[in-house]
């Protein structure tokens, strides 16, 4: 688990940017949001962060385990005004799209089967390019059945 987090931290952003306030902003925000939604202790939280100019898109794939409720959340820095978050099926078609909640789009999803799903984020509004964003795929505690 620790190895994964370290590698994730290495990925995406050039080292030179570490310590810049915009990146710190999104890391803190995503951390707080993860804590707020209450992650399951059994499964890891998949996190991605990076930067995009206005109208640019980033996407990645992750595996969602069947019958596990997930909260997929995205945050962005102060200069970002609108972020669009989309969950894609293994075949690439849209499952859910969130574009209304401006800089904090969130999707809730429970996979019927374990498969590799796609997540796409679109930077719809950024006043000072590039804008930093962070995404977290948070497995939630199963509701008591």
């Amino acid at each position, binding site marked *: 688990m620790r190895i994964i987090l370290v590698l994730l931290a290495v990925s995406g952003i050039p080292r030179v940017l570490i310590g810049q306030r915009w990146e710190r902003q999104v890391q803190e925000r995503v951390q707080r949001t993860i804590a707020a939604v209450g992650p399951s202790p059994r499964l890891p939280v998949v996190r991605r962060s990076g930067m995009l100019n206005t109208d640019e898109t980033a996407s990645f794939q992750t*595996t969602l385990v069947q019958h596990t409720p997930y909260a997929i959340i995205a945050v962005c820095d102060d200069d970002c005004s609108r972020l669009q978050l989309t969950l894609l099926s293994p075949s690439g078609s849209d499952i859910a799209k969130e574009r209304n909640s401006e800089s904090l789009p969130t999707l809730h999803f429970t996979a019927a089967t374990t498969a590799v799903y796609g997540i796409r984020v679109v930077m719809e509004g950024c006043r000072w390019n590039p804008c930093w964003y962070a995404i977290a795929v948070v497995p939630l505690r199963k509701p008591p059945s």
Partner: protein
Amino acid sequence: MSRVLALVLAVSLPASLLHGQDSLMAGLRRQADSLLTTWREAELLADVADSLEQVRATAGSDTIAVGGLRIIVNPSPLQWRDAAERAWPVIDSLYGSAAQDLPRYPYIFRAVDPDSGVRRTVLHVGAEVPWDLDLRATTTLLLTTVTPPSFDPALANWLGSALRPTLRPQDERGVVFVLLVTAPSEAVRRCFLGDIARCKDVLQIGDSTGLLTRWYMTPAEREALVTEAFTDYFARGATAPSLQRCRQHHDDACTALLQSLPPGTQPRPLAQAAGILLVREALRAGGRDAYRRLVARPSAPIGERLASAAGIDVDSLVARWRNGVLAARPKPLTLPWWASFVAIGWTAFFGLCALRSSRWRL
């Protein structure tokens, strides 16, 4: 399961980014390398093409040989041979024994119809001349375009031009005399009055350290130089206040401004004509091999080269140059014999016009 996938994802992501970068750079480097190879081949081809063009341009042309002069020209009414026979003695007297090397630098001329309406083929080699030049103009052309044998950049830089025969040696001396008398520089004035060290300074053949203050010795000269020659240059930006101070007779400001000029832009107090005349004097003193000695050691200081060319020490050479210049004091303005007749003629003409004017008959 999901841990393994996340691990794979995490590892593959930076790897793909770096791979993208490296492939882009590798592609560009490959492009640059292939361009470099193509350029090298193109250069070789271009050298061949140039030499072929040289042959093509001179094919069907006459080669006129007079003394060391070789003139490759297309058939035209121009009187090349006569012009060369006039030019050769003058060129030979300047370069002496080195003039025998001139066949290595042939003239290539293309005589063309001077009517600019006529379409001309593109010129790759040599120079174009209109085919209606008279003998005098053709001779002047040969004298002013001759390639000085083994002329090195150091000498060219000091002279400010190539060393070629002069058309009027006496006029050249007269010009330098006027320069010596009129140049707004105390150093030049002292040179005129016989201070050989100052002459070496203004001719730039001695020690070049701190030359500015030896060229422009008095604060007044430095101020005049800044405020007259470089006003526009210094009037803008951060130098403007210094210019103001210089205008208020602060010599430190004027000197600092002059020292801030880019290298080689500080104007010499004595124009290049003086240097050219000094070289001619050295060649005259040194005999037929003087020019060879002058160009023998391009890396040596100019003073030494002139001395070895002249075969005398540099001070004596400068003294000789100065005496030559003083001896060439231009004649005062004289009235040509016909001028008085012309004046009387015009007076008579206007007088008649005045007498016939209707105003007097009113």
